[in-house]
């Protein structure tokens, strides 16, 4: 009965959340196996995965896995792990992890817990903590059947540092089965954005920005720090920002190291989505704005004055 981490990689790099999962299991003295999927070109990244503390790395290889597909991943992982009687199956709660894990869990005929922020393993079972109602509260989930299937939120746990390699990955020919839904085209964004859920630093703008154009001052500040740009629900609904930038209950729930809220008053839906950020900064003209109750550092002032000066101050530091 082993614990399996499904690794994620893109552009030849392991996703940090994979290393975070391996790090957390190591800290709890739980032996982890890692499973990585891909085409022949993924061999180097599979090799690099052996340096992050997993007892064994299994590389499920097939040319049909060069490109991610929900069914390809669910089929191949299930075909392999159903022969291994896994105690638990974990992956990152990323766009990809959230997509294939439910289909995989359905094949094992068990429930699953998504987007967990804490896990506790005893060697034979797991209890996980996950936020619900966009983080307005948390609940604990335990699993009555094996495998325990759950995904873990990126940026919450400390990543495993590089250690000695556990040796060459064990290659297994992947049984991808029938893939009906296939990606036929990738529409790249005009500018490559850091995804909010994986960003270390987020600078968000609210309705006080008054236009989509004015988001430029937020973007300029974010560029200095390599930060992602977010927005409040009010700014998105007003058409100043696209909905993939929305932080909060009908947007993304984020936990960066640093969250800077500019011209955001702090509606309950927004606070729910960013309250687990490690450090929160609020910039707002209204000293009574609820956001200041959650902020570690506050500046009462007009974001149009403060943010450009902050950009200058950051430039001097980095």
């Amino acid at each position, binding site marked *: 009965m082993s614990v399996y981490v499904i690794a994620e990689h893109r552009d030849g790099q392991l996703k940090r959340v994979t290393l975070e999962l391996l790090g957390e299991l190591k800290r709890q003295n739980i032996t982890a196996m890692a499973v990585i999927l891909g085409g022949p070109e993924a061999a180097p990244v599979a090799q690099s995965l052996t340096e992050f503390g997993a007892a064994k790395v299994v590389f499920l290889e097939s040319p049909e896995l060069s490109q991610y597909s*929900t069914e390809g991943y669910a089929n191949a992982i299930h075909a392999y792990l159903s022969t291994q009687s896994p105690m638990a199956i974990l992956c990152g709660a*990323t*766009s990809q992890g*959230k997509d294939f894990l*439910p289909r995989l*869990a*359905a*094949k094992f005929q*068990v*429930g*699953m*817990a*998504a*987007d967990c922020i804490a896990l506790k393993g005893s060697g034979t079972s797991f209890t996980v*903590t*996950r*936020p619900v*109602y966009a983080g*307005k*509260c*948390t*609940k*604990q989930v*335990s*699993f009555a059947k094996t495998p325990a299937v759950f995904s873990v939120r990126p940026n919450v746990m400390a990543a495993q540092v590089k250690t000695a390699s556990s040796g060459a990955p064990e290659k297994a020919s992947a049984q991808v089965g029938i893939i*009906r*839904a*296939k*990606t*036929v*085209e990738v*529409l790249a964004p005009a500018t*490559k954005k850091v*995804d909010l*859920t994986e960003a270390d*630093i987020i600078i968000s703008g609210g309705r006080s920005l008054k236009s989509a154009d004015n988001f430029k001052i937020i973007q300029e500040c974010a560029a200095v*720090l390599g930060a992602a740009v977010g927005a409040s629900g009010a700014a998105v609904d007003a058409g100043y920002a696209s909905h*993939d930038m929305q932080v909060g209950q*009908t*947007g993304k*729930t984020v936990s960066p190291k640093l969250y800077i809220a500019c011209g955001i008053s702090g509606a*309950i*839906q927004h606070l729910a989505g960013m309250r687990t950020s*490690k450090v*929160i*900064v609020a910039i707002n003209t209204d000293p009574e704005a609820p956001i200041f109750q959650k*902020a*570690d*550092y*506050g*500046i*009462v*002032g007009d974001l149009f004055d*403060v943010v450009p*000066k*902050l950009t*200058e*101050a950051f430039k001097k*530091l*980095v």
Partner: protein
Amino acid sequence: MNVVVMLKQVPDTETKIRITADKSGIEKGDIKWIINPYDEYAIEEGLKIKEGLKAGTVTVVTMGPDRCVEALRTAIAMGADNAIHIKEATEASDPFVIAQALSAAIKKENPEIVLCGKQAIDDDGSAVSGYVAELLNIPSVSVVVKIAIGPDKKDAKAEREVEGGAKHVVHCPLPALFAVNKGINTPRYASLPGIMKAKKKEIKTYSLQDLGVTAAATMTEAGYELPPERKAGKKIAGDTATQATELARLLREEAKVI
């Protein structure tokens, strides 16, 4: 083309969550219930598909206690043709159990397209859609912001959002399930004739037994907690330039986050 839309009734986003004394869940006494916002986009998309093809029906289905009928009637008032209520008083949270019931009810309708929101904003699991697709043995696409049905109505292309602002165009044969995201459309309001129709509409009702769902939950939940309160920190005084410099210094030297 028959479309089935799965929807869930959830607490309004304004709701301040309170935990029950035994920590087994949240206080539900004075909650205002709404249709899950992402499911509203799914309803709208179902109606648009039907209108675009000038044929077919839109059936909405939900699972939950009796109050959920209100959500079904709202969907009928928006324009849905039929509604199905799977009565389940305990509000099961195991996605495997929920999906078994939903997929059994959906199978009876034999739809070409199944729609739902990409997640329900109460449990935030984003899981049930994948389970339902697997149990129905149909392809699925999640986080969808555009759906185009093929000319012979045998296939579809869907745009799904992935991280970093990119989109994948996914092709699949029908029947298929699409879990939709905000941005796909603007949901319409219920019309007055729609509201009148919704009041009288008969709603098909199943129990879990009717659907042959007997599986016990495969997971248990407990220990609901409010997150730790954050304390208000320090306000930085001075003119704007001083404030900005001081903030940058504190973030570097005190908080050590930049």
